């Protein structure tokens, strides 16, 4: 069906696809630490040597009822429902920052339990709905 | 009321530009494409005219030469 020249071109193409796929996969393997945008509290638990000078990001859910505000300092617990980490932060938080919602904190680890954040980013999920619908859902859940 | 619409509970600063700029960019792209297209179409018609005229004259010459050769 294919003429010989097209066959050669096809094999070149397949070779190029394989070559680039493998090289990209290897690049991603080596750069994995940079691709991961944030670590979960469980992953922090598994770190053996904590570098208190390295800036990292911790992400998860803000634990219900854990937000405490004192003056301009805010303290809350980030959880992935297996492990937890306490985050302290002074500054303004995004409007979407709330209990039970996703959060990403940028800053430095004090130790495995404490995280000093320099910046707080709010993470929202893929659900979009009007407020009334959400109210109904919550009522039904009760 | 107009201020409410412009403000959108404080999100107007983000919502309005995110509609206005992309639509503006779309409009500019449309205008630029239209300009190039009409320019090319005009040139195209001109060239076809010139070509057909050349053809016409060529045929005319042939006919004249044919007539001349007959007489």
């Amino acid at each position: 069906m294919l003429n010989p020249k097209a066959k050669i071109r096809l094999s070149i193409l397949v070779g190029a696809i394989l070559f680039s796929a493998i090289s990209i996969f290897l690049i991603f393997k080596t750069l994995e630490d940079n691709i991961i945008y944030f670590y979960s509290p469980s992953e922090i638990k598994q770190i053996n040597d904590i570098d208190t000078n390295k800036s990292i990001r911790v992400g998860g859910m803000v634990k219900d009822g854990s937000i405490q505000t004192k003056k301009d300092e805010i303290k809350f617990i980030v959880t992935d429902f297996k492990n937890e980490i306490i985050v302290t932060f002074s500054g303004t938080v995004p409007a979407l920052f709330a209990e039970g919602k996703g959060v990403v904190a940028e800053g430095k680890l004090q130790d495995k339990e404490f995280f000093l954040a320099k910046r707080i980013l709010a993470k929202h999920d893929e659900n979009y709905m009007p407020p009334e619908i959400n109210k109904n859902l919550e009522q039904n859940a009760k | 009321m107009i201020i409410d619409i412009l403000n959108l509970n404080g999100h107007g600063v983000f919502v309005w530009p995110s509609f206005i700029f992309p639509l503006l960019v779309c409009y500019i792209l449309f205008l630029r494409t239209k300009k190039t297209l009409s320019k090319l179409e005009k040139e195209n018609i001109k060239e076809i005219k010139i070509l057909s005229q050349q053809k016409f004259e060529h045929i005319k010459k042939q006919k004249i030469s044919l007539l001349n050769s007959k007489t």
Partner: protein
Amino acid sequence: MFKYLNPSYIFTITGKILNVLKFIVTPIIIIGVIFSVFVSPIDYIQGDAVRIMYIHVPSAWISLICFAAISFLAILNFLFKIKSATLFYKSLAPIGLTFCFIAIFTGALWGQPTWGTWWAWDARLTSMLILSFFYIIFICGYKLTSNSERSAKICSFISVLGLINLIIIKYSVSWWPTLHQPSSISLFRESTVHLSMLIPLIIMLFALLLYSALIFLMKYRIETIRVKKKSLKD
């Protein structure tokens, strides 16, 4: 039957479609904007900021579809030397690039009020930025090379790399932890966007697709005339 494959027949037909499209695109975009800014409800967490989704998501989709199409055509041209495929991808690439930029720009405007940042180097955002680079290299690939054989090679190689990037964009939100939320709409499961918000999204998608079709047809005519001119000169 052969009548429909005749280039001059296609040329007249596209001219007719163009005239219709020119009149309906603007009203549909206006309807879409009215639906997304005034008619649709606010989101339960994001409030009015959710309205940016109605332009951000369709633009991102179109830029992804466009790249898939131009890569497919470029590879087709490389394998089988189908010259008409070059006309198609040359007409599609600028549209895809435009929508890629629109998606990144509106994404920044959406990120600030919701996440609290304009930009984050997470997998989804970075791979989308890389897509815009691929578009630029692709366009340079055929604009800057006069040799059609060489441009076919360059474009198809960029396409291969770009297609891998496309897969990365698609699955970036499920493979790695990202700031960007996972996708809400999939062919295989129920969408997590409420119906009242899905309607403006679909209208905007439809409107922008029609707009893309309009630009595509105009660009296609431009490229056809250019090819004709070249062949006349030679």
